């Protein structure tokens, strides 16, 4: 696995994201509000290190991550025990809970479906934590 790099907050230029999603409660003081709540700012504090991926599969439903959801993945964060991560495993990008027990690393599915099993990472050469999943987006209407 790669040596983790500490997060540099100073290295964070603000980049506006196309098609900014704005949301907010109507307020009588609206005229005095300078800007609306910017979800991009909330969900993407490190724009140049953040990527959007599409989740495929049902192994993380108990973690609230469903087939078809969008995963917001921040690569500037160092993965810690218990993070939901995107990892490179056998040449594929997988989304699982990261479990670190001493020197052992596991990728844990979170579902009631018993056909998904935890994986212990034994071959570190082909393994890499690609990024940390900081949030997921579920589109209820398309």
């Amino acid at each position, binding site marked *: 696995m790669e040596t983790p790099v500490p997060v540099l907050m100073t290295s964070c230029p603000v980049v506006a994201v196309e098609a900014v999603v704005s949301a907010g409660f109507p307020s009588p003081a609206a005229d005095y509000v300078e800007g609306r709540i910017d979800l991009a700012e909330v969900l993407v504090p490190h724009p140049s290190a953040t990527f959007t991926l599409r989740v495929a599969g049902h192994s993380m439903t108990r973690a609230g991550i469903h087939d078809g959801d969008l995963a917001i993945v921040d690569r500037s964060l160092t993965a810690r025990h218990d993070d939901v991560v995107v990892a490179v495993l056998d040449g594929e990008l997988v989304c699982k809970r990261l479990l670190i027990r001493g020197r052992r690393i596991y990728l844990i*599915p979170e579902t009631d479906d018993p056909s998904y099993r935890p994986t212990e990472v034994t071959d570190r050469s082909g393994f890499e934590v*690609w990024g940390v999943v900081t949030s997921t987006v579920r589109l209820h209407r398309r």
Partner: protein
Amino acid sequence: MAMVPPRVYGLVDCNNFYVSCERVFDPRLEGVPVGVLSNNDGCFVARSAELKALGVKMGQPLFEVRDLVRQHRVRVLSSNYSLYGDLSARVTDCLRGFTPRLEVYSIDESFLDLSGFEGRDLLAYAAEIRATVRRWTGIPTCVGIAVTKTLAKLANHAAKKTLLDDSGVCDLGGESEREHVLRVVPVEDVWGIGRRSAEKLGMLGVKTAADLRDMEPRRARQMLTVVGERIVYELRGLSCLPLDQAPAPRKTTAVTRSFGTPVTEWEPMREAVAAYATRAGEKLRAEGLAAEALQVFMHTSPFRPGPAYSNAATVELRPATDDTFALIAAATAGARKIWRDGVQFSKAGVILTGLVPVSKVQPDLLAAADRARGARLMAAMDAINSRMGRDTLVPAATIGRAWRMRQESRSPSYTTELDDVPVVRA
């Protein structure tokens, strides 16, 4: 010759940039030979280390190495400039966190002004830059550090070729390291020395970077004009090229400027971007090249208070072009996409990439360059088609077979199209 006060420059250069971009989202491309093709003529514009090791040359046409490709299961991809443009902008943003003074030199290279950082361990700082870019964007880089841009280029070359060690970073501030590198690097690998100049120099026995440094500057001027003289001084550690004043690179070309006063209106920005595109077009034609993609970027000043904004857009040019009108149209369209009202822009730039010899570009029957001719052409085409049947004559750009074949091996627009984002298995 005007000298610049002592400074420290860093050059950050992405390793096999287009291939590295593809590998970020497709881990199966890791460790295997990968090549990226130009869209128009089917020659290699990027090669992974494994492909270079197989002897495939930059610019080599695919058909020449078909057997090799099959035999070694080379992964051959069409170029995906929207992906490369986005990752390039991310790398630049990441670098801007390390120094506010930065010159985007090409789509995969930036000079950093690291003056004032001498108090710290520059090699450690370079390693931190490299590790952070790799972590944030997935793109591997090499970092070279030296007191002039030419030496920083050389330091980067040394880091890439592991001339001193395999750390991926190299500081030529030390006398013994600099001497070693200058002695082993052939003169044709010095920044700004073309093949022809290297041949001329070789006949005089000037074979290494050290030989060139030791040349009489006046002699260098006679042979290689003022450019050659400048290189000699730069190799001696006397800086002659401040940021934003660099000779044109070979694979990509950039025209960028800082604004005297911040630009807040679209109209002047549009004019500025059009002017850069025009200049970039002149550079292209002077070299007999056409570009496959254009990237336009703009950002605020890191020294001013207020909200920071930085963005870039990439526009593909199909077919590749050296036509100023096409470049202006692309630059304006790209700039419009990233423009934000009320932002104080301090700098903007245009980068042309995917440069291919203009002679190899498939001609486009509808080139916008000659509208009158285009109109006559359209009229003639319509006449022929009406007399001899529909689709007897169609513009080359619409012929599906050739284009679809080329599109077949193009990766998705992973970072710029929602429908194309990478899939992660859960």
